[in-house]
Structure formats: structure tokens, C-alpha cells
């Protein structure tokens, strides 16, 4: 029993410690951002590796999610005779919540893990200290382009997710279940707001992009230089991102809903 509390305390201490270290690391990365943007070629290359290559998984998942939203939504709305509100429901759910959140989690799985293991492996094979010996700062040369590419990629991916999700919902709702296409769009247009819905989704995805990228590069950069160390960093990259994104999502949603 006492051991359990000790473990809990230990875990809590470690959590606060990691949070502090990550925040400090984020400060450093933000400080380096202007200089890193000057070498946009490096960011562009990473954007290709982690952004463009995530497109397929994001796109396919989005269509499936949109379809299942339409199926479930149709059955619920049908009970109230309000199936013409299907478009609103699908769009709202995707734009405000599922688009940003699922994109961030999928991104962590597709790109975050590979970033963490790549950087961890570079550390383990002396490549980072090799760079330091050549008077090249690995934070500038390795970390920054990857971080920035992630920060840019996630909001774009989230928007693509929401758009394709609505398309999936349209296919099932209008094409399969016979909801009228007119109200599907017009009710959506009447209910979805640019500022509070679409933009809040965009803000969320920017926050998630920073979170997912930060966690991935931090875990990789600080991974113990061993096989186990790198594999743990990879796992942590996705687990921490998923939990952090869900928590931050709750926070942002509470603030936005509280305001409206």
C-alpha cells in the first residue's frame, strides 16, 4: 500500500519534471524558429517526409470516420425526425473535435514515432555529437526543421481530415441513406460558424501540431543511447502525445464553450 503511494508520488514527480523540461525545450525551439525559417529548404524536405507521407493514412481514416458518423448520426436523428440535420452533426463533430484530435493522434502514430526513433538513433550512433564536433548545432540542424514541419503539417492535415470526413458523411448520408442533399448543406451552412467552429478547430490543430511535434523531437533528443532507450522514446512519443492532446482538447473546448 505504502509502496503504491510511493510509486504514485514518484510518477507525479517525474511527470512534473518532464513537463518542465519540455516547456524549457519548447522555449528553446521557439527562440530558434526565425533562424530555422530562413533555411526553409530543410523544413520543406521534412514537410515532405512527415507531412505528405501522412496524407494517405489521414485521408483514408477521415473518410471512414465521416461515414460512421453519418451512420450513427442518421439513426439518432431519425428518432426525432430530424435527419436533415445530419450535415450539421457530421460537420460540427469533425470540424470542432474529431478532425483536430484524430489527426493529431494519427500524426503521432505515423510521423511522431518515426521522428522520435530517428533522432534517438542519431544520438545513439554518435551522429549528433558528430555534428557538434563539426560545430553544427543539432538543435538547429536536426530538431528545428522537423519540429517546424510538424507544426505546419498538422493544421493542414486536420483541415484535410475534416473536409474528407464531411465528404465521407455525404456519401453515406446522401448517397446511401437517402438524406436530401439540399438541407444537408443548407443546414450545415446555417449552423456552422466561421469563427467559433472552423477557426476554433484550426486553433486546436495548431496547438496539437505544436504538442505532437514537441513531444516527438523531445523524446527522441533525450532518449538514452541504447536500443531500449530508443524504443521507449518511440512508445512515449505516441502515448504522451495522445494523452496530452486529449487533455489540451478538453481545456480548449471548455474555454471556447464557456465563452460562447
Amino acid at each position, binding site marked *: 500500500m505504502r509502496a503504491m503511494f510511493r510509486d504514485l508520488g514518484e510518477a507525479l514527480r517525474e511527470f512534473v519534471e518532464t513537463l518542465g523540461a519540455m516547456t524549457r525545450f519548447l522555449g528553446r525551439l521557439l527562440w530558434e524558429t526565425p533562424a530555422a525559417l530562413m533555411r526553409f529548404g530543410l523544413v520543406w524536405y521534412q514537410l515532405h517526409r512527415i507531412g505528405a507521407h501522412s496524407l494517405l493514412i489521414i485521408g483514408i481514416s477521415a473518410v471512414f470516420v465521416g461515414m460512421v458518423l453519418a451512420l450513427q448520426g442518421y439513426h439518432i436523428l431519425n428518432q426525432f425526425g430530424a435527419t436533415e440535420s445530419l450535415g450539421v452533426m457530421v460537420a460540427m463533430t469533425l470540424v470542432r473535435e474529431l478532425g483536430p484530435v484524430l489527426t493529431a493522434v494519427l500524426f503521432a502514430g505515423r510521423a511522431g514515432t518515426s521522428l522520435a526513433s530517428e533522432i534517438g538513433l542519431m544520438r545513439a550512433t554518435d551522429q549528433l555529437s*558528430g*555534428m557538434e564536433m563539426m560545430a553544427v548545432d543539432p538543435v538547429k540542424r536536426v530538431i528545428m526543421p522537423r519540429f517546424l514541419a510538424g507544426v505546419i503539417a498538422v493544421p493542414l492535415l486536420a483541415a484535410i481530415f475534416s473536409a474528407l470526413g464531411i465528404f465521407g458523411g455525404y456519401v453515406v448520408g446522401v448517397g446511401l441513406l437517402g438524406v436530401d442533399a439540399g438541407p444537408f448543406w443548407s443546414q450545415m451552412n446555417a449552423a456552422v460558424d466561421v469563427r467559433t467552429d472552423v477557426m476554433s478547430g484550426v486553433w486546436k490543430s495548431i496547438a496539437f501540431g505544436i504538442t505532437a511535434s514537441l513531444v516527438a523531437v523531445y523524446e527522441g533528443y533525450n532518449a538514452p543511447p541504447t536500443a531500449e532507450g530508443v524504443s521507449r522514446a518511440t512508445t512515449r512519443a505516441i502515448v504522451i502525445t495522445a494523452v496530452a492532446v486529449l487533455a489540451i482538447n478538453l481545456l480548449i473546448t471548455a474555454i471556447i464553450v464557456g465563452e460562447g
Partner: protein
Amino acid sequence: MTRPAGQEPHIELEGLRFQRDGRPIFEDVSLSIPRGKVTAIMGPSGTGKTTLLRLVTGQLLPERGSIRVDGQEVTGIGREALYRLRKRIGFLFQHGALLTDLDVYENVAFPLREHTQLPDCLIHHLVMTKLQSVGLRGAARLMPSQLSGGMARRVGLARAVVMDPELVLYDEPFAGLDPISMGVIVRLIREINEALGLTSVIVSHDIEEVSQVADWAWIIADGRIIAGGTPEELRGEESPWVRQFMHRLSDGPVPFHFPARDYPEDLREVPR
């Protein structure tokens, strides 16, 4: 212990003390490395030769003592100053430390691209001449994973000298090389040194090669400098430490074993 006579030192260590996990690696090391010469640092495996190079380049911090490179104190200087210093130093890693997502060509070009604004044609010229001199011009487009250990070492060598540094530190340049490339590398180090007048530090156990190439050699064992001199002097040295090392004797004062407790005792007690 004599200093290399009549030479202005490029690197000077004084009263250096360093320990790892509470185990002292260096107790009290003082040595100087003359400018424009080839100096060898020899010693049995695990005595801290690599550690010494890392201390000289500021990758590790000593517990006590001073390290001066080019008259500048290395310990405790800021990152900026350290990077400025490192731009003038070429470093060959014991295991190459090539960047695995760049090919051989880009690995050698890496310091040039990072630190200079040279046009592509000039970079191409520099990279190709360095690769030619290590015999790997034909391997320019291979990825590091496609190289053997010795090839990787040679690429690392080309990369270490591509910026025309004033000081080159070679960590085990001969290990794992076949006799032919070994001869080529020995000649190369000599040539680079004479043509450019730079200071070379070679960490090695290969007494033969060191004798061919080095003007001066230090032998480290047991956390101390046990001898220093020209290779010929060291061969004639009477001290049992030096004799053991220079003449490859397994018995003598230089410990072959990592510090451990009594052997029979260790055998008897099965760890649980």
C-alpha cells in the same frame, strides 16, 4: 618526462583530472602537443584515449585542470566560442559517425554546406579531391549503410579534413583497415600534415604505423602519462611499462584487465 623540445605547443593539458561514475579515468595528466607535427597518443584499450580527445574538444568537462588549445582555455567557455574553436578542428570519430541519411558525397560536403557559402562547383571540387585521396571517389553516391567499417572510417577521414582545419584529431584511423589502405592512410596523414602544416593527433595502438608517421608519442596507462618521446626513443626506453607496451608483452605492470576483484572469488560466487 621530456617535452617535445623547441616547439610551440598547440594543445596543452595541465593537471587534468577526470572521472566517470566515480571511477577516475585521469588522475593528473599533463602533456603538450607541438604545432605542425604528428603526435601519437598510445595506450591500452579502455585507458581513456577517446576520452582525452573528447576533453580537448570540449565535449566533456574535466573535474580539475586546464586544457588550452591554441592558447585558449577550453574548459568552461560558452557554446559560441566552443563552436568557433571546433570549426578549426577536424575530428575523425572512432566509429566514423557518418550521417546515415546523407550519402558519402553529402557527408563530406556537410561541413562546407553548413559553414560556407561556397558555390556548388567549388564544393564538388573539394569533395571529389578529398574522396579521391582516400580512394573512395567511386563510392560517392553510396549510403553509409552500404559501406564497410574501414570504408566508413576513410569517409570520416575525408570529412575531417575537408574544411582545411589547423588541427586534426584522429581516433584510431588504422583500426580495421587492410594493409594496403593502412599504408595509404599513413601516407595521407603524413602528406596532409606536411602540405598544410597542420597539427595532427593520432590515437592508436598500432606501434608500427605510429612509428612511421609520428614525430612524437605519448603513452597513457592507468590514468597517467607513463612515457613520452620520439618513437625511436620509446623503443629504447628501459621502463617496464613502456617496454611492455612497445614490445607487446602480455606480462608486466600495465593492466590488461578492467579493475576487478579476485578471479577465483568471482568464479565461485554466482550472482543472483
